[in-house]
């Protein structure tokens, strides 16, 4: 017949539904199973023994889990805060100046943690921080905060930069025309407009810090297990559904934060 399709619609491609379904199953079925078995009454990861909250209770009462969870949160707050401050400054510096040679290099430099394999960063930090630990004798949480801040920066930087690039420059120009100093312009015009992106960047950085295993495992000093490294350590012996319960809480927290990120980011000023 030779009828030409007017618009290209990916959903009309043959097999789209099947592949989409397969992907959803592949991605979400294991997670769904993990969540379901966290409510298992029996001490089993494959046999159902009735609905129960006992693993949540036992995880909640496990003081090692409590310590690790608090440490994870403290670390994530520190790292996300520092990373967001650095990322905001970097974003301003790379969008509010006329393009100059070396700018692309700076983009790449800021986003370096996205490119370099995590294990490389981890080993490098292990070597450097070990030296510093020997010299200074300080073995506190500062190293983890530094390491996490470093790899969180690009995650906070990207949404903030995107926002700055999309913002209407006339407002800032108007402020300048009305004799506002650069600082006042920033304080009263740019920053309020940027706030949603900053919050979004913070959330993203927070989740990234909360989830990290590899770098944390290499950089941590004595007594600095975070929730993910604690969970990793449990795997040598057979795991009980308590790990599922912890993972479920972890998952809900992450999803919650990402959802907030989504809504904050979508809101128009």
């Amino acid at each position: 017949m030779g009828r030409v399709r007017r618009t290209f619609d990916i959903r009309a491609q043959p097999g789209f539904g099947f592949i989409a379904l397969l992907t959803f199953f592949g991605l979400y079925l294991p997670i769904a199973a993990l969540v379901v078995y966290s409510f298992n009454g029996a001490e089993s990861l494959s046999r159902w023994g009735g609905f129960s909250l006992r693993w949540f209770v036992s995880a909640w009462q496990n003081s090692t889990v409590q310590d690790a969870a608090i440490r994870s949160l403290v670390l994530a707050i520190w790292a996300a805060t520092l990373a967001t401050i650095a990322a905001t400054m970097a974003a301003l510096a790379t969008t509010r100046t006329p393009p100059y040679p070396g700018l692309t290099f700076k983009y790449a430099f800021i986003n370096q943690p996205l490119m370099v394999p995590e294990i490389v960063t981890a080993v490098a930090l292990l070597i450097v921080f070990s030296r510093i630990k020997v010299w200074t004798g300080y073995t506190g949480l500062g190293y983890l905060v530094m390491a996490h801040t470093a790899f969180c920066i690009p995650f906070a930087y990207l949404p903030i930069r995107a926002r700055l690039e999309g913002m209407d420059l006339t407002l800032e120009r108007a402020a300048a025309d009305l004799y506002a100093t650069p600082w006042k312009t920033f304080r009263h015009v740019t920053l309020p407009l940027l706030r949603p992106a900053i919050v979004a960047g913070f959330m993203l950085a927070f989740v990234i810090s909360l989830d990290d295993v590899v770098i944390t495992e290499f950089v941590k000093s004595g007594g600095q297990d975070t929730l993910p490294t604690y969970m990793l350590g449990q795997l040598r012996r057979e795991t009980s559904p308590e790990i599922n319960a912890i993972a479920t809480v972890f998952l809900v927290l992450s999803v919650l934060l990402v959802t907030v990120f989504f809504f904050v980011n979508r809101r128009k000023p």
Partner: protein
Amino acid sequence: MKWKTKAATAAIALLAFAGSAAAEGELNIFNWGDYTSPEMIKKFEDTYKIKVTITDYDSNDTALAKVRAGGHGFDIVVPSANYVQIWVKEGLLLEARPDQMENFKNVDERWVNVPWDEGRHYTVPWQWGLTGVGVNTKVYGGDINTSAIWLDPPAELVGKINVAPEMNDVLFATIKYLGGDWCTDDKELLKKVRDKLVEAKPKWLAMDYSVTEKLPAGDYAAVYYWNGAIMRSRAKNPDIKFGYPKEGFPYFMDSVAILKDAKNVENAKLFMNFIMEPENAAMISAFAKYANGIKGSMQFMPPEMQSAPELVVPPEFEKAGEFLATCAPEVQQLYTRIWTELQK
């Protein structure tokens, strides 16, 4: 609003940087995750007024890498038997002479002159175990003290076998079964080993870690696996029996050592002596479910462990057990090739 923010910031700052200074009365233990009895630690803390911090690792290599780099702040580490010599050779361990400590008399003679620490100048036993055979006797009633259970399985067991996915354990038992010795580079024999494994594998159902669930439930009728897991399976299903492969089976042991750059050497020595006390060693076993190598600790264990045939090696099989030495790299390469072929 403002004071709240300030208070929160202050609290976070305190949380973050508290506990970084090395105060007196501390002990930093670097151990496998989920392996240290909290009750035992509590008792140690209360007895000596020492604050214990436990940090987990998930492999011998991670632990070695972190300690080798320095600045780790740990006092005690618990490496596996085949790693202890690496630690000693690299000068990472303190020669703490546990053999001169008060409670050393409690260490079972079998675990004193071990190949990785002759006379125990560096380490004391933490937990040991072995890889053996577990069979559901409802399915198969014949002799189970042999590797034939999984290498030449009787018809009843074909298709219902699980083998531990550990290269050294599998190759060791097969080499022994065919009359060789560990670390052999006899190509003729190794060819037979490969053929035997390739021939046996189709008769297995799986090579994975879910034995404590699937053996008692009847999904597996026989396993070649670690004794602690088979003991826990038997607790759920009394039809399961443990067998010691008479041709040869591998032992494993993790031992407690003090690091050379430990800050709390005296406390670490107290800890070493403490865990050689039968009652305290029993607490470790009750938690980790393996035997500990301390004489007289059995009577302090939970009743179901005291008479466990998995933990007490019968004298006639004692000679069949062996600790796996680290083979020469070229031998290791041959073994890895067999293993890779088996994985296909």
